[in-house]
């Protein structure tokens, strides 16, 4: 069955989620991945959106993190201060999902600004929940499509900490959560090296070459000794994903 690289990325992200995860969902690819997991192998997964909706089961993917569908299908909806205090900072979230405009080899992310902060070339949306998601969730999954303008050797601005500018900062700051344990791209999957914390390629998606990856990465990426091929999407995975995306498109165009 044919599939796009974006579909591959979403499906790989979905596979990483478990039934007993409590997942802080961002909009876009994370939302698709989390709901795909819920509709396939992880029906009991708990999805939380920062709008305050806990244990939500949307039938279409929300356009925003606060669509009415999220509240209507949630177990309960709490205020936003409570969400950030009791639930995120409270340490209740096992997996936080992040995306971003730019990322470096230690999975630090920039979604704030390109160029100088005071005189920006491009003003990006900013951090939102990301700075605290990055340190208060048990672990972080990141989904981002690769490209030379996105995968940078050095970020102009760190919006959310991955493993820090040298990979050692989490430990030196006493942050106990794991940080980014997976970076899932449209070409491959990275995991942090146990020692250096540099994000290291552990599997390559079907049909992708190491040359292609090199062309789309602003640093010279390292490969794990055990680097393998990512299993292709199954027919069921693709079907469920396309189905929810079709429902979503129809709903938002209405």
């Amino acid at each position, binding site marked *: 069955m044919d599939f796009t690289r974006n579909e591959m990325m979403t499906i790989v992200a979905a596979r990483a989620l478990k039934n007993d995860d409590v997942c802080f969902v961002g909009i876009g690819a994370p939302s698709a991945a989390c709901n795909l997991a819920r509709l396939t192998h992880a029906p009991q997964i708990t999805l939380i959106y920062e709008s*305050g909706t806990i244990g939500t089961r949307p039938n279409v993917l929300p356009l925003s993190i606060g669509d*009415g569908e999220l*509240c209507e299908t949630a177990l309960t909806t709490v205020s936003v201060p409570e969400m950030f205090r009791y639930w995120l900072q409270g340490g209740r979230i096992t997996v936080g999902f992040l995306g971003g405009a730019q990322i470096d080899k230690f999975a630090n992310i920039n979604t704030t600004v390109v160029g100088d902060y005071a005189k920006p070339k491009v003003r990006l949306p900013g*951090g939102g929940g990301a700075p*605290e998601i*990055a*340190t208060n969730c048990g672990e972080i999954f990141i989904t981002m499509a690769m490209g030379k303008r996105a995968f940078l050797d050095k970020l102009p601005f760190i919006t959310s900490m991955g493993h820090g500018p040298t990979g050692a900062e989490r430990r030196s700051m006493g942050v106990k959560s794991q940080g980014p344990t997976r970076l899932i791209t449209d070409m491959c999957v990275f995991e942090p090296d146990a020692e250096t914390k540099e994000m290291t390629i552990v599997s390559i998606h079907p049909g992708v070459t190491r040359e292609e990856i090199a062309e789309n990465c602003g640093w010279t990426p390292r490969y794990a000794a055990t680097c393998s091929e990512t299993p292709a999407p199954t027919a069921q995975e693709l079907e469920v994903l396309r189905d929810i995306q079709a429902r979503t498109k129809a709903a938002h165009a209405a």
Partner: protein
Amino acid sequence: MAKFMGLAEAIAQNVRDGDTVAMEGFTHLIPFAAGHEIIRQGRKHLTLIRMTPDLIYDQMIGMGCADKLVFSWGGNPGVGSTHRMRDAVENGWPNALALEEHSHAAMANAYEAGAANLPFAVLRGYLGVDLPKVNPKIKSVTCPYTGEVLATVPAHRPDVGIIHAQRADREGNVLIEGITGCQKEVVLASKRTIVTVEEIVDKLNPPSFNSVVLPHWTVGAISHVVGGAHPSYAQGYYKRDNSFYIAWDKISRDRDTFLAWMKDNVLDKTPEAFAAHAKKGSV
């Protein structure tokens, strides 16, 4: 003490040039009608506080109402940029816009501290990130028990807090349901408040003992504006107009298209125009 009045009167009485204004509603119940009225009344030099500026502040910024924005995520959710905000920040059009940028957690805590009458909030946040380098308002305290250093933000205490709610009773008690965001906190943290509501009812009938109800003595002006949250939504009344959020990307990209849209849909209209949206997108 709650006082019922038209929206034009409510804005005229409560929002002054140079005020610090917080208009909240987290995706849900965003007080668009009130924003449009502020634009029509030509308010200037406002400091606008909102976690997600969303289209409401994109419109107010593009029309030159604001000198400063206090925020944590400035985009069109699920769509892309808020182009008017970008144009102000990147090019100073129609005027320069100062930014005071926080994280969501810090903004939520700052409202919470305001409601609790504390001068600042404490959070485990801002670790390993660059925002504290560009926002001098982010400071820290040391825990007197553990020695841990934690981030702080000053409490938000807006001059005016504006929200939209599902309904009020005739005494002026206000009910909010669904995604309640920071609205209770904004009302309790602000010096003056305006609440627009979908409906005014004889009996509030909160669905549970623990419903989010703002007693009449905590709110100021109440204005009945049907559909007043469009293109955001009012749970139980009408859905989020996601197609408009998508359409806004094109409308707002270009200054002239934006200005033409604002003239037709805001400057030449009244709050009553919102009622049509409530019907169109009903649940």
